């Protein structure tokens, strides 16, 4: 549980905001120059804000009014910097193990072997940072922060220079950190909404040094005010589903309130509950139950509300047996299908549209 | 006015030379240094009209180099060695008392035995009086006599061997023993003119007027003992 209030003036830039997080992963989202790095620096103790108060799990890390300032090394926050900031004189192995000795005795957290394996660092262990590629540096920086067993992880665009497949390997690991016995909370800066949607529990939106919105991911993502900040393409609903069965052809059956979905690439064991992200733009509506489609995921839904957008699109809020779904269709489709509140219809969700990355928890 | 003459002079002559310069009709530029340094500089073509050393070896060396003719060198002053101690110390009745007065830890300051003329005269004396070997570990050799004087004046060493002319100028020390002249080689200050203009100054240095000034500064006259 983190409470943050900060006020700081740079020449030409004013930061003035206050937000709270509640464990899990909180995403900090905002345009370039919005003040994300400044916030994280203040949390880490690398920037002393003009005015501020930071409380982590009841411990006051900063209180300018009461003159409290805990130095960075006693905050135990793992910081993955936007620029990797590796130690140039140490090889990769020594960079990774740098913080180990300062972790409190018996503290639990990421193990060396696991981290190295996950991040694919074995072949690099004896290399000097100067010889690493951009993405390799970023992976080492991530490993280094994890291995100091922090009580909160600050990540400033940690995956920006990683390729897609590598990201897909690391994201589940971060989820395990959050969900494992340790429940390591993470403050995560990213421009990639799909990363955020997959990972984050809470979302803090910054604009120009001010708080624009904060709250649970579902709420903020569904907040029409947030759409311009997040980008139209990324709007969507998040559902909870139970894993019912894994078939031999790799498809899994998941139960949501309105029915069953067949999805590929679900790793969670039978009986667990997972999180699905369904982008509004991936939902097709049909008045009749369609037949002979390559997509077998068809749920009966009821139109909750029709929100005409600014452009040619409209957002249709749907009730799927109690779950909320969002569909983005053209205004013309609204007219053609005569979509209106209370109307029953069918939502077609393409099986493969639910990205593996969107299945979490 | 006449063109000034440049004199390269041993630093220990400074006090007296300043007065002599005032008495000399032509303006003098006095450049001080160590005898060896200046001898080399003269050999290297230094723009000096007169060179005035504290050591006859270096004057001989200059002659060997063909810079000056040996017979042109003129002794302009002499000096003698004295044993000094901080003001208020009881005088020594004989040199043999020195080791006892030094005690086990006291040091005897003197010029460096090979490099500083006063040092080699002091060595001659101590050898002559049979104390050289015994005092080996209690010497404090300095790079010039002034430094030796300063050490004694500040009480860093209880005794020192310096020229009488130096002791004369320092109020914080007193002479506790006069070293007999026959215990060491004669202490002479040779001068040589390097240019025709310089001859006048060398000649002036042995005039009565100049010799008196030198005497006032604790030196012995050029003709002393002869």
């Amino acid at each position: 549980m983190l409470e943050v209030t900060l006020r700081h003036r740079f020449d030409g830039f004013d930061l003035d905001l206050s937000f709270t997080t509640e464990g899990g992963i909180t995403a900090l989202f905002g345009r370039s120059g919005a003040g994300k790095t400044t916030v994280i620096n203040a949390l880490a103790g690398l920037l002393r804000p003009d005015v501020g108060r930071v409380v982590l799990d009841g411990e006051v890390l900063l209180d300018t009014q009461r003159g409290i300032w805990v130095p960075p090394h006693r905050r135990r926050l793992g910081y993955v910097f936007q620029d990797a900031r590796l130690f140039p004189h140490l090889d990769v192995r020594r960079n990774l193990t740098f913080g180990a000795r300062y972790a409190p005795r018996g503290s639990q957290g990421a193990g060396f072997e696991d981290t190295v394996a996950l991040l694919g660092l074995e072949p690099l262990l004896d290399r000097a940072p100067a010889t690493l590629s951009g993405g390799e540096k970023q992976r080492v920086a991530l490993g280094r922060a994890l291995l100091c067993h922090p009580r909160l992880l600050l990540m400033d665009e940690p995956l920006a220079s990683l390729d897609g497949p590598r990201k897909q390997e690391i994201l589940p690991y971060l989820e395990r950190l959050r969900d494992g016995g340790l429940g390591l909370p993470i403050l995560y800066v990213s421009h990639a909404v799909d990363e955020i949607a997959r990972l984050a529990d809470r979302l803090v939106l910054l604009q120009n040094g001010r708080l624009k919105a904060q709250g649970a991911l579902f709420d903020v993502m569904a907040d029409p005010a947030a759409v311009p900040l997040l980008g139209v393409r990324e709007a969507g609903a998040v559902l909870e589903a139970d894993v019912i069965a894994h078939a031999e052809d790799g498809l899994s059956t998941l139960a949501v309130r309105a029915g069953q979905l067949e999805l590929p690439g679900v790793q969670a064991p039978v009986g667990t509950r997972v999180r699905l992200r369904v982008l509004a733009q991936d939902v097709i509506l049909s008045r009749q139950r369609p037949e002979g489609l390559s997509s077998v995921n068809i749920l009966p839904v009821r139109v909750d509300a029709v929100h005409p957008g600014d452009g040619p699109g409209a957002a249709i809020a749907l009730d799927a047996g109690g779950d909320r779904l969002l569909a983005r269709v053209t205004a013309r489709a609204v007219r053609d299908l005569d979509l209106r509140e209370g109307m029953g219809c069918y939502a077609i969700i393409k099986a493969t549209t639910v990205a593996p990355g969107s299945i979490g928890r | 006015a006449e063109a000034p003459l440049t004199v390269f002079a041993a630093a220990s002559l400074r006090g007296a030379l300043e007065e002599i310069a005032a008495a000399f009709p032509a303006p003098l530029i006095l450049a001080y240094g160590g005898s060896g340094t200046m001898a080399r500089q003269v050999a290297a073509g230094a723009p000096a009209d007169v060179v005035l050393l504290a050591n006859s070896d270096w004057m001989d060396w200059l002659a060997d180099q063909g810079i000056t003719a040996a017979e042109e060198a003129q002794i302009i002053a002499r000096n003698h060695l004295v044993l000094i101690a901080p003001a208020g110390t009881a005088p020594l009745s004989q040199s043999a008392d020195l080791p006892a007065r030094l005690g086990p830890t006291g040091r005897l300051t003197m010029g460096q035995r090979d490099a500083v003329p006063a040092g080699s005269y002091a060595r001659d004396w101590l050898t002559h009086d049979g104390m050289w070997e015994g005092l080996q570990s209690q010497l404090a050799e300095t790079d010039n006599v002034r430094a030796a004087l300063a050490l004694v004046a500040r009480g860093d060493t209880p005794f020192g061997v310096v020229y009488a002319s130096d002791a004369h100028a320092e109020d914080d020390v007193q002479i506790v023993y006069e070293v007999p002249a026959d215990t060491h080689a004669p202490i002479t200050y040779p001068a040589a003119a390097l240019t025709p203009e310089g001859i006048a100054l060398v000649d002036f240095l042995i005039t009565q007027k100049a010799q008196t000034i030198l005497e006032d500064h604790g030196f012995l006259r050029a003709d002393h003992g002869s």
Partner: protein
Amino acid sequence: MVSFGPIMDLDAAAWAALVLSLRVASVAMLCSLPLALWVAWILARKEFRGKGLLSALVHLPLVLPPVVTGYLLLLSFGRNAPLGRLLESLGIGLAFHWTGAVLAALIMGFPLMVRAMRLAIEAVDPRIEDAAATLGAPRLSVFRRVTLPLIFPGILAGAVMGFAKAMGEFGATITFVANIPGQTQTLPSAIWTALQVPGGENRALVMAALAGLVALAAVLLSEALARRVAKRISGAR
């Protein structure tokens, strides 16, 4: 204790020595800057056989007693040495001339200047220079517009050290150019001369204090300059 009152009472010779020392130190520092920079650059950036030897050669004036350096200078540039005679015939008299004091000061300060600049050059990230090259800047422009401003603190440090050393140089100077008042008597020589007379300590200390003041001014100036540059780079105003 030294009292500073007597500074005003210093005689003409002492003032002349101060002025000469300032001149010698400034000229020595300015003359050696480009050469020192060049040597520093070679030592910092090039790999070649004999690099260690060059570095040792640069350090040599530090190791040799100054008298030896002065003596070697006298041997090489004395009026009777071939090199000295050649230069003299070209109108460049060095021995027993203030320019000789410049040479001595320059040589004695050289290792300090080279080292400061070399450290600064070694600290410049060559990738920044690479970036300049890709923007079309030829080597020399890269040096002038990127490397040089970035190593400015090192150059400043080198200049201050060279200047200070030149102000304080004594052994090599007096051995090479002697101690002729008004011509080659620098402040250190004057101080030494004062120390040769019993009771001259006070005068010597006053002159030493004067030298100290000059150095203080130079150091304060350089610190202020360095701070300004650092501020500009860190973006503080």
